[in-house]
């Protein structure tokens, strides 16, 4: 199985690469080959894609769209060929229609919604700090959907994952897909999304210890 981590110069992706290599060790029969690349050929030949993302929404989407042909080929592989893609942090945020960070920019528009800064409501909040940094719990609502069930297979009821972000994905509620929810500073937000082959996590499975590695293994076996 070929897995391509899309390298669009979004900052440090060595953690993502290392964690996928580690997770792949547990699935020797899948013969997983992991590549960090932005070559259109490697994206075309991939069975699964990973879209990391660090820093600001605007910088990420601009770098991605700045690589000739990258957005188009990703769109073809994900929306037409229905290959599995895992978006991590800003990688997930870019699935949205629009991100408000740094004056705003258009996203990929694969999942309807807008990415906005976390609002702090001091009167309801247990914490009032931004960024939201540290380990928080995610509650998944797989509702018997096989892909969602497989993605969270062998994890505890409300597993902990490592977060670091100030912006969150506000989905349009007209769409029906599986979500994961997390509570922070007086509100719940969408911390994971599983919409058929498009999967996103606001948290960092690559930095979330054993549960994170388990989730990556689950992704590799989808």
């Amino acid at each position: 199985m070929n897995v391509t981590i899309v390298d669009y110069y979004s900052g440090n992706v060595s953690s993502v690469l290392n964690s996928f290599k580690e997770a792949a060790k547990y699935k020797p029969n899948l013969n997983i080959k992991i590549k960090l690349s932005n070559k259109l050929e490697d994206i075309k030949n991939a069975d699964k894609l990973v879209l990391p993302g660090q820093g600001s929404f605007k910088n990420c989407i601009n770098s991605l769209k700045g690589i000739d042909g990258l957005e188009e080929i990703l769109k073809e592989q994900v929306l037409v060929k229905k290959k599995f893609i895992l978006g991590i942090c800003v990688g997930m945020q870019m699935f949205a229609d629009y991100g408000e960070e740094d004056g705003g920019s258009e996203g990929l528009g694969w999942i309807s919604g807008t990415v906005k800064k976390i609002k702090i409501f001091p009167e309801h909040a247990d914490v009032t700090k931004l960024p939201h940094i540290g380990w928080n719990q995610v509650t998944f609502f797989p509702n018997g959907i096989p892909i969602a069930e497989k993605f969270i297979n062998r994890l505890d009821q409300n597993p902990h994952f490592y977060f670091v972000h100030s912006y969150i994905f506000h989905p349009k509620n007209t769409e029906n897909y599986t979500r994961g929810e997390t509570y922070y500073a007086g509100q719940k937000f969408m911390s994971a999304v599983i919409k058929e082959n498009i999967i996103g996590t606001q948290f960092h499975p690559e930095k979330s210890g054993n549960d994170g590695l388990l989730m990556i293994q689950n992704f590799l076996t989808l």
Partner: protein
Amino acid sequence: MLKNRIIPCLDVKNGRVVKGINFLGLKDAGDPVEQAKIYSDGGADEICFLDITASNENRDTIYDVVKQTSEKCFVPLTVGGGVRSVEDISKLLNYGADKVSINTAAVENSKVVIDSSKKFGSQCIVVAIDAKKNGDKWEVFTHGGRNNSGIDALEYAKQMEENGAGELLVTSMDRDGTQVGYDIDLMSKISSKVNIPIIASGGVGNLDHLVDGIKLGNANAVLAASIFHYGKHSIKEAKEYLDSKGIPVRI
């Protein structure tokens, strides 16, 4: 609910741990990679390396340590000590650090924090503040605590937030190494001054000090070195103790 973090810190000199854990069965007590792995397997929420290598010719040893650690530990890794420039930060991140902590350079040249947080994102920029009490205020020290900048620590904390720091690592110079507990007054004052998370450091001697740092000092994370070394307390014990005191931790 967000959990409070416990961060063990390892001092690394010329690529070797200076004060380390003295566990039975540890093949090489001076190997930072092996020690970091023990901490992360034991439930540490993050690992911190402080590079105290003095000579320039050995400065590159930390990069190899960071690379190997990031291939074996899958929790966030913060690296500090001797970080002078945006290039240093870039190099550490490329070798696998998730966050870089900046101390002296942040005082001497505000552009380092401004430029690096713009370039790599605030999430990976930690400003380390070494503060020492002088009368009724605290002053920021640089060069591993040797030089007094005379800058007010509270004003400086606010300034660093504005410059783009994602977190502050606050160390009390008065308490560091004393094992009598964090400077709670300093922690709570800085925590209420800024809207970014703060990590308390300096002075931990027992598990109650960790509780105080969070409950009274309003720190979002607690860093400690010596209580986790020599097997005095495990990360697991610390977490269970915090949990018993009603502090949310990841167990």
